[in-house]
């Protein structure tokens, strides 16, 4: 029973030592699927509460970071009586291999699910270096 509970609960993101957040909010690590589809790598991330205006996808060198900012919708004048999940931002970082065509990454959000399509770059042809010897 406790195992299934852990699976469906959001995981809070861990902070590196010595790093503090500037926003007073909780940050969760979104669950993801990473699928290799032919010429594309597809990343799906569950980020409920996020839409196309509140998600940031940044690429710095080989680090792809997704960040979803949440504006909690709290029912006015209501008191929370049962709380099974926490609300907060989402962040997760992936290291890309150099095979990705970084210019053509596409991102869409639908019903709180972020979909990133990373096309693989055309593989550079392996160059064969001829070895010549002296006779």
């Amino acid at each position, binding site marked *: 029973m406790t195992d299934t509970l852990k699976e*469906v*609960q959001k995981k809070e993101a861990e902070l590196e030592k010595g790093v503090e957040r500037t926003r007073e909010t909780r940050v969760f690590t979104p669950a993801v699927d990473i699928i290799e589809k032919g010429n594309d790598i597809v990343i799906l991330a569950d980020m*409920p*509460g996020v839409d196309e205006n509140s998600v940031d996808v940044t690429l710095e060198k080989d680090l792809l970071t997704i960040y979803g900012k949440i504006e909690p919708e709290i*029912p006015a*004048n*209501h008191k929370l*009586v049962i709380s099974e999940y926490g609300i907060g931002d989402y962040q997760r970082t992936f290291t890309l291999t150099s095979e990705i065509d970084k210019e053509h990454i596409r991102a869409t959000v639908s*019903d709180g699910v972020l979909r990133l399509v990373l096309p693989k770059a055309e593989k550079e042809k392996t160059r064969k270096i001829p070895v010549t010897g002296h006779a």
Partner: protein
Amino acid sequence: MTTTYLERILDPWREFDRMSRLLNRTSSPVSSEYPAVNVWVNGDNAVITTEIPGIERDTIDISVTGNTVSLSGSRPAEETKEEESYHRHELWHGKFSKMIKLPFNIDADKVKATYSKGVLQISLPQLETDKPRKINIK
């Protein structure tokens, strides 16, 4: 480790543990783990919010009986072809159903629900006839 039927009935504590867990489950106001819900109350109105990203809108079913709300829906798996492979598989998919008990009877005709950005929000007002009435003394 597998236990035989005989071992199970010979261990009364194991049985006791199982029974108490069953009892705890039925007396709790919410019936299952997924999806996690938050319940907000303001006097004669309750709001249930739940994060269910990627659910097909048509499959979301909300029904109300007395003081109990039943939620169900399903999330399709990503379509993949044979040659496609998962590097990571953390997303949940399948069918879910959950029951939530409120401290009052619900006016089913006035229930409103929205599903936006993967978050379902249901507003549930208390049944008018169920509200406390002031009795005038003649």
